[in-house]
């Protein structure tokens, strides 16, 4: 053939893909194509969120994009020996990407574009429907934007589930010389990675959501607070902001409209409590991440004492679609008072972990079995911790719980940020309960006594239980302590740490009744 055909090959640049060798794979593909004198363009896309299959390499063909999963650099010559560039069969082939059941059975609204293209291509973003929500917002009165978000039923995806539109309305009507939009990207919960995936895979979506929020409430300045454990996301967002400024989407005259919106990204410094919104604001102001008393609410007196929206990445990222397609479109997904979709993060001891965006209402069991394919170890399932380190441990009997805020509350659990961590039967729930208290002790900001002292006492009590000392009395004491922490802590850290502890006690009492172990071994 004289004219060479250019083939596009996608190799993700997402941190999770890089963590399992995507960079080496990209280098190998470029090298192999050169050696064989083939015209190949390697696009470094975001991840589709099918982390079980990373590095997930895709080839663009006439039948659509064909995926190859868990590709290593060593597999590359063999792939080229086959009909890789035509999407030919290979033992690593997963077929047409869109038809992979894991992806096909999702309802991707927020993550619809994630992983499709180079995340920093603003042209690709626009071509794939980006900035349509902003365009519509610019035709509406700010009050109408707020009402659209209220109507959509969107609730805060950070964990608390507070109606986003109501928060916006409060800031809209609050008076202040300067209002702020703050994005909470301090995604510290174990088992969660949706914020990271989105910031690395579709950063302009978050930026668009923040611009809309700014216009809606009259805020001209925004900050994204990214945890320092996410250096890749920080770099991507920083670059995306620079591009958005260059292209006129940020600064004076946003997208050609009459508004001003400045945006900056800030790095956290390894403190879990800074995911709590008032501690986050303190940190942004340059102080220690100590939580604030409420009231006043941040919506009235937030960053630098001004009215401030503090929203999670996923809440803000849901906004462009709500504006683009309308509140009704969004609220038609979901169940009960949980409207829209939930980006579920399936992780831990599970065969197929990754991002699963579904309408609220799918059961915990369906996520773990249908999507996850059971445990990674192949051993029997024993527990799932939902909602991060402050979430309850649910036993097998609870796998029928629908993913919905109220259903989880009814079972003394919480949905939180949508993370699910699966454990097989080797897990010892007494040790997990101890870890919950230990984690609280490490991360407590120290402002209130129930959290600061209670967590340390909690570790000691559980150690005595594990060591077999006076078990009944110590378990009674532990229950009392949990009740006190729940009732008297100032924020969710101390207030929710009892969830994993009490659920472990309630559903897995046998783990607190094992033969005594030495205190040393309990550590």
């Amino acid at each position, binding site marked *: 053939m004289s004219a060479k055909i250019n083939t596009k090959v996608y190799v993700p640049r997402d941190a999770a893909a890089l963590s399992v060798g995507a960079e080496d794979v990209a280098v190998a593909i470029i090298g192999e194509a050169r050696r064989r004198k083939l015209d190949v363009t390697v696009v470094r896309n975001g991840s589709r969120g099918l982390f079980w299959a990373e590095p997930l390499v895709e080839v663009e063909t006439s039948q659509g994009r064909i995926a190859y999963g868990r590709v290593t650099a060593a597999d590359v010559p063999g792939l080229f020996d086959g009909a890789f560039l035509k999407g030919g069969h290979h033992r690593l082939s997963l077929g047409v990407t869109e038809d992979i059941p894991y992806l096909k059975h999702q309802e991707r609204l927020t993550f619809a574009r994630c992983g499709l293209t180079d995340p920093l291509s603003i042209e690709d973003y626009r071509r794939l429907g980006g900035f349509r929500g902003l365009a519509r917002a610019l035709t509406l009165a700010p009050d109408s934007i707020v009402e659209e978000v209220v109507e959509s039923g969107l609730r805060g995806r950070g964990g608390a589930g507070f109606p986003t539109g109501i928060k916006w309305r409060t800031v809209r009507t609050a008076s202040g010389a300067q209002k702020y939009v703050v994005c909470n990207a301090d995604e510290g919960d*174990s*088992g969660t990675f949706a914020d990271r995936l989105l910031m690395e895979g579709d950063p302009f979506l978050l930026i668009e959501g923040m611009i809309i929020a700014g216009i809606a409430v009259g805020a001209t300045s925004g900050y994204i607070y990214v945890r320092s454990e996410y250096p890749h996301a920080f770099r991507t967002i920083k670059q995306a902001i620079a591009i958005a400024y260059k292209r006129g989407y940020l600064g004076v005259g946003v997208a050609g409209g009459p508004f001003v919106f400045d945006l900056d990204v800030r790095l*956290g410094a390894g*403190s879990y409590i800074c995911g709590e919104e008032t501690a986050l604001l303190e940190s942004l102001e*340059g102080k*220690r991440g100590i939580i604030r008393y409420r009231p006043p609410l941040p919506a009235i007196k937030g960053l630098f004492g001004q009215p401030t929206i503090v929203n999670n990445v996923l809440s803000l990222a849901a906004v462009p679609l709500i504006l683009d397609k309308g509140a009704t479109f969004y609220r038609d997904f979901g169940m009960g008072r949980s409207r829209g979709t939930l980006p579920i993060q399936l992780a831990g001891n599970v065969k197929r972990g990754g991002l699963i965006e579904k309408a609220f209402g799918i059961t915990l069991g369906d996520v773990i079995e249908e999507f996850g394919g059971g445990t990674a170890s192949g051993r029997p399932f024993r527990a799932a911790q939902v909602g991060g380190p402050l979430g309850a441990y649910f036993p097998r009997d609870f796998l029928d719980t629908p993913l919905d805020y109220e259903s989880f509350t009814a079972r003394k659990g919480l949905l939180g940020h949508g993370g699910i961590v699966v454990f097989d039967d080797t897990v010892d729930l007494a040790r997990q309960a101890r870890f919950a208290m230990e984690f609280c002790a490490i991360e407590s900001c120290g402002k209130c006594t129930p959290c600061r002292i209670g967590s340390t006492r909690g570790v000691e009590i559980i150690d005595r239980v594990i060591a077999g000392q006076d078990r009944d009395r110590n378990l009674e004491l532990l229950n009392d302590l949990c009740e006190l922490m729940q009732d008297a802590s100032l924020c969710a850290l101390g207030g929710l740490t009892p969830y994993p502890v009490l659920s472990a006690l309630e559903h897995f009492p046998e783990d607190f009744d094992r033969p005594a172990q030495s205190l040393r071994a309990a550590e």
Partner: protein
Amino acid sequence: MDLQVNNRVAPPWDDAEALEIVARHRQMPGATLPILHALQERFGYIGRAAIPMVAEALNLSQAEIHGVVAFYDDFREQPPGRHTLRMCRAEACQSMGCNTLVEQAEKRLGVGLGATTADGKVTLEAAYCLGNCACAPAAMLDGELIGRLDSARLDRLLDRLESAS
């Protein structure tokens, strides 16, 4: 996957350069964390001299700046080892056996979490979630994320660290 070891060595603390870094960031709203990050990014730690420097630039008390440095786990007041290995020990990684891997690393390096080897080569730290929970257990070496860590891969990684400078 080939586990790479970077050999980026931070320059020794330099008051004049530190002052320049402080000056470059001081106008930012809430400049304390950005300044401290920039100093640590450059020198690997926050030198003692930084406390009065930052306090003066921001018109805050030294106690306040010291409080910030001490509060956040990221900020170091001592130079770290030439390499930093952070191992995640949060729940998702626990479910995949991270605690055994932490023990393995501690044993081979001869230090516990939060400590630096006697030769100043490696600082071993705990992390509480690196956001790689679907590819657990996770770790981070000199800022590069590592997923699906197992005992054999950890051993290879430690071999490389041993032969690195």
